[in-house]
């Protein structure tokens, strides 16, 4: 099979006023017709710039300084701009990361999908729209005839991404570049989209470059993988080969940082120390040397070439790893439920055992919590409906433990967090915290109670005042609560910085001077400085790269042990929840549909929705069949303004029957492990082979032991 795309020694630079960023620093790769390449790496490693270089759509100041990009024998680097425009959209299709910003809000979806047809095929409006409908059908858009006339904001996130894909493939390109196509989406939709891409690739015979930071995404879906670091490819091989035997320490580190895999062992997640290299300066040696656990003096003085010891697997390292990671375990399929139910013997909980607090009751008991947001309409802004954000949610959290709340976007988990920290007032229910019902307190009392519960936002940067220095940010809670004397504040700030792993001089800097991970450390430091009993962490790591995510998760666990903290950990990512949580609450459309010990739920979900969530988690495997494993969920949650009758999940439930639409199921004890499920037809245990919850310590799959 002839290579469709060949990139040879590509160098791309971005010239800024003060410096030159060597974004792509001599990469070479090739891609055959119909082949799928995964381009993997942390943010800032140059993967997006590589994709942009192929399209020749570089940011201001960006230019390809040398190298060749041959598409079917034509060097795109040398092509005049007019001809390049003919290639874009017709020969190369592109999908962007965020469908909410990549679609023009003032144009109908159909017009945008048809745009490339109009541009390249000279189609008239009628023909173009007809084509748009065809393509929408191809991407399995429901009611394509209606959708073509709609505007992006009228579509859900998943539908937008389908539209974007439709726009990319409207001219049946031979190469599709998908730049982080699922990062902004819920796990459930992510799976659907990835599957769609797979099918389209097969049906249309496209070659695909899948750019992502998530190894889970490429496993089983790509033919080969290029791992990028510091603008270079550090490992380049068939996917199966990389998953089986990652040779570059960086690749290995990426695998180790995955929480999906970490649960199996008793150790903390591996996190790559330091930050990606500054691409404005050129280092003489291996750019990864500074962060590499195997680096020798030699590494920082000499740059390794990209070659390999056997054909088809090249890497740029003097001291490649062979099977430190444990050889082939990733090569075989790891059933999702298997690793999810994996035994975690880490002694990270058991407050009673720690002697921390009385065992008289849980630290937090939430009972019948309700929150509606009014929807107003009409001239007088009368309340015409309510968004039922949280509907009768109850759960408990013991001191020193972690409760993971999981669910798709819009399920109400963030509202629960806001209710707990007092950013919203509950419409009904009680929040019993350390013996006090927070909902009954006056504003003043509530403020005084604020020390006990702290919050971490997903976007740490947005939660740090850009005009304040770190010292002021960290001191603010102390000032508010008039805790201690001012003189002691400096000491406390310095100590807390040290605890979250930031240097003391960080205190005099501004939030914008820190990286994403460091900012989340700052947010954690601020939450911790008041010595709270409970930290509500709302998606604290979902905006972070895997390696950084690992740092934060580790830190949170370390601090939990240290202070006997409780966490209410909110995430849409079951693998992260699984790594962090002792117990799990699964929310759907404002309802808690399942709650119970983490192992039990992961091993034997009782609710079909939980099952669907678990199935949607990408599998770290190179095996295409394993990647297809499970049914997953289809569709997206309906609007919370008008929740479905009875069981709110019934329209999407594969097991739904007539009663589900009529009668709302209550949380019922489901298993001996303390699992509660709200379902008329809860899943029988061992439906999908994993052992029952009670036997969580049994080996899950042969390949794991």
């Amino acid at each position, binding site marked *: 099979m002839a290579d469709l795309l060949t990139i040879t020694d590509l160098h791309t630079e971005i010239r800024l006023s003060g410096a030159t960023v060597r974004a792509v620093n001599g990469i070479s790769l090739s891609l055959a017709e119909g082949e799928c390449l995964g381009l993997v790496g942390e943010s800032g490693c140059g993967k997006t710039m590589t994709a942009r270089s192929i*399209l020749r*759509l570089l940011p201001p100041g960006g230019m390809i300084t040398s190298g060749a990009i041959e598409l079917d024998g034509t060097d795109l680097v040398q092509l005049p701009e007019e001809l390049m425009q003919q290639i874009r*959209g017709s020969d190369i*299709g592109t999908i962007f990361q965020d469908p909410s910003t*990549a*679609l023009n809000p003032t144009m109908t979806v159909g017009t*945008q999908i048809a745009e490339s047809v109009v541009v390249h095929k000279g189609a008239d409006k009628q023909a173009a729209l007809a084509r748009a409908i065809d393509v929408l059908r191809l991407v399995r858009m429901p009611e394509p005839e209606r959708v073509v006339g709609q505007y992006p*904001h*009228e579509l859900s996130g998943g539908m937008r991404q389908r539209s974007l894909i439709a726009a990319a493939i409207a001219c049946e390109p031979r190469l599709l570049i998908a730049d982080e196509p699922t990062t902004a989406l819920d796990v459930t939709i992510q799976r659907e989209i990835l599957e769609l891409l797979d099918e389209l690739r097969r049906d249309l015979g496209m070659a695909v470059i899948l750019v992502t930071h998530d190894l889970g995404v490429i496993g089983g879906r790509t033919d080969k993988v290029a791992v990028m670091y510091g603008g270079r490819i550090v490992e380049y091989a068939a996917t199966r080969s990389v998953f089986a035997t990652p040779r570059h320490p960086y690749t290995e580190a990426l695998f180790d940082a995955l929480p999906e895999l970490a649960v199996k062992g008793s150790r903390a997640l591996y996190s790559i120390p330091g930050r990606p290299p500054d691409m404005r300066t050129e280092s003489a040696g291996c750019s990864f040397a500074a962060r590499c656990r195997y680096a020798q003096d030699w590494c920082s003085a000499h740059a390794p070439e990209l070659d390999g010891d056997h054909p088809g697997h090249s890497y740029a390292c003097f001291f490649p790893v062979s099977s430190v990671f444990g050889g082939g375990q990733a090569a075989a399929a790891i059933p999702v439920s298997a690793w999810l139910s994996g035994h975690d013997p880490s002694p990270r909980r058991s407050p009673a055992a720690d002697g921390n607090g009385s065992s008289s009751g849980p630290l937090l008991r939430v009972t019948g919590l309700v929150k509606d947001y009014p929807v107003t309409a*009409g001239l007088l802004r009368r309340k015409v409906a309510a968004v039922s954000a949280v509907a009768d949610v109850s759960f408990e959290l013991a001191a020193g433990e972690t409760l993971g709340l999981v669910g798709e976007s819009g399920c109400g988990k963030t509202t629960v967090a806001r209710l707990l920290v007092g950013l919203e007032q509950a419409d009904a229910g009680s929040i019993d915290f350390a013996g006090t019902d927070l909902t009954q307190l006056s504003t003043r009392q509530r403020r005084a109670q604020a020390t006990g519960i702290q919050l971490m936002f997903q976007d740490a940067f947005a939660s740090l005042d850009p005009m304040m220095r770190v010292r002021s940010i960290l001191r603010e809670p102390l000032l508010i609560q008039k805790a201690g004397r001012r003189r002691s504040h400096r000491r406390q700030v310095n100590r807390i910085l040290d605890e979250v792993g930031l240097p003391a001089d960080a205190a005099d800097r501004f939030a914008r001077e820190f990286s994403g991970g460091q900012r989340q450390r700052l947010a954690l430091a601020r939450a911790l400085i008041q010595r709270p009993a409970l930290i509500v962490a709302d998606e604290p790591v979902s905006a972070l790269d895997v390696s950084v995510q690992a740092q934060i998760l580790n830190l949170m666990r370390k601090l939990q042990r240290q202070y006997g903290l409780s966490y209410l950990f909110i995430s849409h990512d079951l693998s992260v929840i699984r790594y962090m949580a002792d117990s799990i609450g699964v929310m759907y459309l404002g309802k808690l549909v399942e709650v119970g010990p983490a192992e039990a739920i992961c091993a034997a979900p009782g609710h079909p929705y939980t099952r669907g969530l678990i199935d949607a988690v990408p599998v770290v495997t190179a095996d295409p069949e394993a990647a297809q494993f499970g049914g997953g969920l289809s569709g997206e949650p309906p609007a919370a303004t008008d929740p479905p009758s009875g069981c709110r999940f019934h329209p999407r439930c594969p097991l739904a029957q007539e009663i589900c639409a009529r009668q709302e199921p209550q949380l019922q004890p489901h298993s001996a492990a303390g699992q509660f499920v709200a379902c008329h037809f809860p899943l029988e245990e061992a439906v999908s082979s994993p052992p029952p919850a009670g036997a969580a310590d049994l080996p899950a799959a042969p390949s794991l032991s």
Partner: protein
Amino acid sequence: MTAFLARRMLQAIAVVILVTLIVFTLLELAPGPDRAAVVGTAAHSQFLVQYLSWLGQVLHGNLGVVSAGGESVAALLATSLPRTLILVGFSTLIALAVAIPAGIFQAARPSSVTGHGLRVLTYVFYSMPAFVLGSVLILFLGVGARWFGAEGPQYAGLGQVITDWRDLTLPVLTLALGTIAIFARYMRSAAADSLDEEYVEAARARGADERRVLLRHVLRNSLVPVVTLLGLSIPQILGGALVVESLFNFPGVGFQIWQAAQNHNVPVILGFTLVFGVGAAIGSLLADIAYALLDPRVRYARA
């Protein structure tokens, strides 16, 4: 959409009522005889009573009289307002027609020679008071080159006013140039923001050329804030018309206000101000409707 419109209209009505209140308060500051000319016999009663009686008269179309035994303010308005609308209408259209492409061009090619040139011109016109600009235009294009008349059209008929391009050009141009400067600066910034958006990148990736990107994607999105600005600028443009009309002897509303101010003719100032205010409130309402038409998000989100 209808609910949004209805609510927006209620707001406009509230604004109009407030405009009348402000105007009336200003009237309270005016010297006694002038006030009597407007409020008539109610001059000695309570503020509120006076206000309501005045409002009642206004609602009956009675804006007071120009002078004792003279022409009514409403009649004066009826003859002068259409002229101002012609002047303002033409200038605004020209301003939009020039400022939009100029702004987009500056955003698309900020460092080109033309881009820099446009930017300098924009600043120059922005910082030049209208009377200076008008005088310079008269000196060079009117009196000097004799291309255009140095005085606005004097015809009685509006049709003749519109067709007398030779005389209409300079007043329209003076008002337009200042307005262009305001709009172009805004358009540039809106278009620059729009160009940074990912959907522009997406369009390029689909093979759209620069022309298509600018016309189909950037234009409409950057028009949205400009339309809002247009709505807010209406009073400013009318205010500019005041200077331009007096400079070019063009007997429109601004001209009459200006004359009235010179003569302390408070009934005329107040009556006309009221009409300006109401016009601006309506303009702002129209701008919001246009905004909703341009931006589908508003159309649906507020419905």
